[in-house]
C-alpha cells in the first residue's frame, strides 16, 4: 500500500516487479475534457505524468493505482470491479494500491464529496478496455490471425476458430510494444458480468483477522510515540507548563511545546514523547499547563444559537438564489408560517482516533496516516515546514473512518513538527478525549423558514441559514454565497415555486468547523424537508403528493413512485406515523420513509426505514446498500442521541459516555432500494444521510402532532 511514484521504473522497482509488464495510464491534456490512455512503455510517454494506472505483470496479475483512500466507502472493492469488467479478468486478479499525495500528478485527491467512483469510472472503464484490446492485438499477431477472430475472457485471449488461448501474462511483453488504440468501444450496461453485481468486498478478509493496517497500526523502525495536551479552548497559546511529573513517568523521553496549523490559524499544545503510547498518555495527563487564550470569546452553545437567531431576525444575508418576490408576499400575507429550525454541532468521532506517523529526515519528511486529503497535506506541510513539495512524501493507510475529519491537515502537521523536534520517527496518537474536544465539528446551524400557502399552493418560500461556513474557515470568499445554503435541496423546487429565496447569513465563532458526512445537506435536509412537510400540512396535502407536485422531473417521479410502493405509503393506517423526505447530495437524490409507533411506556419506536436511492450508473449494489444503511445509522445518532455543546469556550463532551453513539439495539430495520437507470454515476457514501432526520420527525408529527424543530431530540420524551 505504500508503494508508488510516478516514474514507471520506480513504480516497478517499488512493487518488486520486473520490467516486463503492460503499463497503461490516463493522461489529461490541459485542453481536453476526456483522458487519453497512454502506454507508459512508449518512448514519447516517459516524460508525461500519468494519472490513474493499471499494470499487468507476466503472471497476469493486475495492479491498479487508486488516487482515493479507502475509509470504509468501498473503493478497495469498487475500483477493481470496474477495471475487471472491461479488462475481462476475475476480480481477485486485480490488486489495488493507494497513491501517495501529489495533486500535480493525480489532480484532486480528496476522498470527499462522494466522488471516488463517480469521478473516475469513465476513465477506469477506458483503461481496462484499452488494455484488453492491446492484449488481443498481441495475441492475434502471435497467431498471425485477425484481431476480430479473438476475444478475451477470464484473463485469457482466445482464438475463436481454433480454441487456442494465451494467458494475459504471456502477452504483456508484446502488448507493451503496441500503441494504445483510440476510440475503444465500451460495453453496454446489459453486457456487464462484474459491474452491477453484489460481489463480496475484497478488503473484508483483512478486516476480520487483524491484518488491515490502519494509521494507528503503522510501525516504522525506531519509532517513538507522542501524545499532546492541546488548548481546551480550541485556540490560543501556551503561557507556561510544568513537565516535572510527566518526565518522571517511565518511558517518557521528552516534553516540549508544539504549534500546529488549523487552516489559516494556529493552535498550541504540549507534546509528550515516550517509547510507548501508554507512557505518552500518562505523561500528558501529568502535565500542568497554563493557557493564554485572551482575545478569544468563551462562548457557550446557548449564546451561539441566540446570536444566530437574532441575526436571522434582521439580516438578509448572502442570497444564493431568488425567484419572484417572496418577501412582499410574506409581508402582505394574513397568515404565514415563520419558524426556526436548529441543528447541533457534531463530532465526526471516527472509531480510529486521529493519529499520524511522521519521520523528519533533514531535507525530507515522510508521513504515514489515515488521511483523506494526501495532496492537501503535501502542499500544506511543504509550506509550513519549508520543504520542497516533492520532499514531503505522504503515504496512505486504511482509514478507520473519515467522514470529513481526516481531510484536515492539523494532525499530520503536528506529527511533522514533533518528529522534527526529536529527530526521529514518531506516531502521534490522539486520545478519544482529544478527538472529541478539539474539533473541528460539523457547524451548528439555525434556519429561519418563512412560507405562505394560498389555495393549496406554496405561494412564497424563504429560507435563511445562519451558521459557521466551512468554506469561509478554509479561506473561501466571505462576501458571496457558496453552496452551503442549497446543499441537500432539490433543484426542481426552484423551477416549480414562483416565489422562492435561499440565503446564507454569515456567522463566525472561534470554533473550528469542517465537513461532516454529507456536509450541509446533513442539516439543510432537516430544515428544508421538515418545512416542506409543514407547508404540505398547511396546504391540506399529502406530504408525498406535495413532493410529486413540486418536483416536476420524470426521474424523480419514478423514484417517488418506488418509495410510495415499497413503503406501503398509500395503505398506511390512522394510528401509524409515516414521514417522508427527499434530499439530494453529491449528485444522488435519496428518498426515505420512516414509520414510527408509540410504545406502552410512551416512547417513540422507529419501526422501519425505507430508502430509495437513485445514483445512476453504479458498480456494486451491496456496497451502495451498506453505505445507505450506515448513513442512516449515523443520521439516527445525530438526530436522536448526540450533540456537541460548549461552555466557557470549551467542549463539554469528552468520550463515548457523554457523546453517546447509536448502538446495535437502537437500530430499526432498514430497507434500501436502488433505482435502475443509465444516467451518469452519482455519489454513494454520503447521500443516504440527509433525508433520515426529516423523514423521522415528519413521522413523529404524523403520529403525535408534535413538530420537532430542534435536533437532537429524544425518542423517549417526545
Amino acid at each position, binding site marked *: 500500500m505504500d508503494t508508488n511514484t510516478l516514474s514507471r521504473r520506480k513504480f516497478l522497482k517499488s512493487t518488486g516487479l520486473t520490467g516486463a509488464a503492460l503499463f497503461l495510464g490516463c493522461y489529461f491534456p490541459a485542453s481536453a475534457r476526456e483522458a487519453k490512455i497512454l502506454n507508459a512503455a512508449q518512448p514519447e510517454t516517459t516524460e508525461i505524468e500519468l494519472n490513474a494506472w493499471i499494470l499487468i505483470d507476466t503472471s497476469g496479475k493486475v495492479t491498479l493505482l487508486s488516487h482515493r483512500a479507502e*475509509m*470504509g*466507502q*468501498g473503493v478497495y472493492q469498487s475500483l477493481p470491479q470496474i477495471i475487471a469488467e472491461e479488462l475481462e479478468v476475475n476480480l481477485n486478479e486485480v490488486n489495488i494500491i493507494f497513491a501517495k499525495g501529489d495533486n500535480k500528478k493525480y489532480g484532486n485527491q480528496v476522498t470527499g464529496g462522494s466522488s471516488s467512483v463517480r469521478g473516475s469510472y469513465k476513465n477506469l472503464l477506458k483503461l481496462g478496455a484499452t488494455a484488453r484490446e492491446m492484449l488481443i492485438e498481441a495475441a492475434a499477431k502471435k497467431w498471425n490471425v485477425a484481431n476480430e477472430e479473438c476475444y478475451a475472457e477470464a484473463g485469457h485471449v482466445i482464438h475463436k476458430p481454433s480454441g487456442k488461448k494465451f494467458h494475459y501474462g504471456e502477452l504483456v511483453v508484446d502488448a507493451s510494444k503496441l500503441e494504445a488504440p483510440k476510440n475503444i468501444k465500451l460495453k453496454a450496461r446489459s453486457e456487464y458480468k462484474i459491474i452491477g453485481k453484489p460481489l*463480496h*468486498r475484497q*478488503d*473484508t*478478509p*483483512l*478486516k*476480520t*483477522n*487483524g*491484518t*488491515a493496517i*490502519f494509521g*494507528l*497500526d503503522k*510501525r516504522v523502525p525506531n519509532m517513538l510515540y507522542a501524545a499532546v495536551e492541546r488548548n481546551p479552548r480550541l485556540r490560543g497559546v501556551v503561557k507556561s507548563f510544568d513537565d516535572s511529573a510527566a518526565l518522571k513517568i*517511565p*518511558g517518557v523521553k521528552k516534553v516540549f511545546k508544539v504549534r500546529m496549523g488549523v487552516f489559516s490559524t494556529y493552535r498550541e499544545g504540549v507534546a509528550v514523547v515516550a517509547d*510507548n*503510547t*501508554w507512557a505518552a*498518555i500518562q505523561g500528558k495527563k501529568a502535565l500542568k499547563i497554563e493557557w493564554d487564550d485572551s482575545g478569544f470569546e468563551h462562548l457557550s452553545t446557548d449564546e451561539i444559537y441566540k446570536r444566530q437567531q437574532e441575526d436571522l431576525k434582521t439580516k438578509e444575508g448572502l442570497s444564493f438564489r431568488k425567484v419572484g418576490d417572496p418577501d412582499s408576499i410574506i409581508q402582505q400575507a394574513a397568515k404565514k408560517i415563520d419558524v426556526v429550525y436548529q441543528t447541533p454541532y457534531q463530532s465526526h*468521532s*471516527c*472509531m*480510529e*482516533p486521529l493519529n499520524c506517523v511522521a519521520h523528519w529526515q533533514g531535507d525530507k519528511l515522510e508521513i504515514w496516516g489515515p488521511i483523506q486529503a494526501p495532496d492537501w497535506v503535501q502542499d500544506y506541510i511543504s509550506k509550513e515546514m519549508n520543504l520542497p513539495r516533492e520532499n514531503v512524501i505522504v503515504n496512505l493507510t*486504511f*482509514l*478507520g*473512518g*473519515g*467522514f470529513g475529519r481526516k481531510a484536515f491537515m492539523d494532525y499530520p502537521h503536528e506529527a511533522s513538527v514533533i518528529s522534527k523536534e526529536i529527530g526521529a520517527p514518531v506516531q502521534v*496518537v490522539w*486520545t*478519544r478525549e482529544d478527538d472529541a474536544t478539539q474539533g473541528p465539528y460539523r457547524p451548528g446551524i439555525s434556519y429561519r423558514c418563512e412560507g405562505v400557502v394560498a389555495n393549496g399552493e406554496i405561494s412564497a418560500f424563504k429560507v435563511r441559514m445562519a451558521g459557521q461556513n466551512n468554506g469561509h474557515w478554509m479561506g473561501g470568499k466571505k462576501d458571496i454565497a457558496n453552496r452551503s445554503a442549497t446543499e441537500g435541496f432539490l433543484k426542481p423546487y426552484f423551477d416549480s415555486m414562483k416565489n422562492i429565496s435561499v440565503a446564507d447569513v454569515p456567522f463566525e465563532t472561534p470554533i473550528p468547523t469542517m465537513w461532516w458526512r454529507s456536509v450541509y445537506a446533513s442539516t439543510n435536509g432537516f430544515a428544508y424537508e421538515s418545512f416542506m412537510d409543514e407547508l404540505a400540512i398547511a396546504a391540506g396535502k399529502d406530504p408525498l403528493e406535495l413532493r410529486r407536485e413540486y418536483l416536476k422531473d420524470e426521474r424523480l417521479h419514478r423514484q417517488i413512485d418506488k418509495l410510495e410502493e415499497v413503503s406501503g405509503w398509500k395503505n398506511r393506517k390512522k394510528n401509524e406515523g409515516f414521514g417522508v423526505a427527499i434530499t439530494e447530495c453529491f449528485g444522488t437524490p435519496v428518498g426515505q420513509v420512516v414509520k414510527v409507533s408509540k410504545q406502552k411506556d410512551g416512547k417513540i419506536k422507529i419501526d422501519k426505514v425505507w430508502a430509495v436511492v437513485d445514483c445512476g450508473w453504479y458498480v456494486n449494489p*451491496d*456496497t451502495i446498500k*451498506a*453505505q445507505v*444503511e*450506515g*448513513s*442512516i*445509522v*449515523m443520521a439516527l445518532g445525530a438526530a436522536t442521541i448526540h450533540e456537541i455543546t460548549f461552555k466557557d469556550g470549551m467542549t463539554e463532551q469528552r*468520550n*463515548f*459516555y457523554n457523546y453517546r*453513539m*447509536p*448502538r*446495535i*439495539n437502537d*437500530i430499526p430495520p*432498514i430497507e434500501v432500494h436502488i433505482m435502475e437507470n443509465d444516467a451518469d454515476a452519482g455519489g454513494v457514501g454520503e447521500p443516504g444521510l440527509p433525508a433520515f432526520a426529516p423523514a423521522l420527525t415528519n413521522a413523529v408529527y404524523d403520529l403525535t402532532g408534535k413538530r420537532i424543530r430542534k435536533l437532537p431530540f429524544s425518542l423517549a420524551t417526545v
Partner: protein
Amino acid sequence: MISLNINQKTYQVDVSPDMPLLWVIRDIVGLTGTKYGCGVAQCGACVVHMNGEAARSCVTKVSRAEGQAIVTIEGLSQNNDHPLQTAWNEISVPQCGYCHSGQLMSAAVLLRENPNPTDDDIDAAMAGNICRCGTYPRIRQAIHLAAEMQRKGIKNKN
C-alpha cells in the same frame, strides 16, 4: 518481567504492571489487530478473550492478565475461518473495519455460549461495541448466519 500467554505463545514483557493490556499487546508485543477506540471501556474496539471471556483490554491492567490465556483477533482462528469470520466475509459486514476486531471477539463469546441467539440476545451481547460506520444491521445478520453454519457444522461456506 511479566509473562503473558497470547494466542498460545508466551511473551516476557518488561512494562509497568498497571499498563493496560491493550497497549502491551499493541506497542510491546506488536499485535496491532486489537484496537484503541476510547480507553474507558465504552466502545469495545479493544475486546480480547481472557480465559475465554470477553475482556476490554484498554482497562485491564497487564498485571491482571499475567498467567491467563489471552486470545486476540489474530488468534481467533488459524485461517480466518471461524464461522463468524466466514459470515463476516459472506455478508461484507465491515466498512472502515476498525471496530470489527472487537465486534468479532464479542460475537465469538456470544456464539459459544448461545449457539442460537435471537435478535434480542444479539442486541444484549453486542451493545457494548460501537460501530461508527453503522454496520449493525449486517453484524446482526452475520451472527445469525454464523450460528446457522455452526449448527450445521459448515466451517467455510465456500
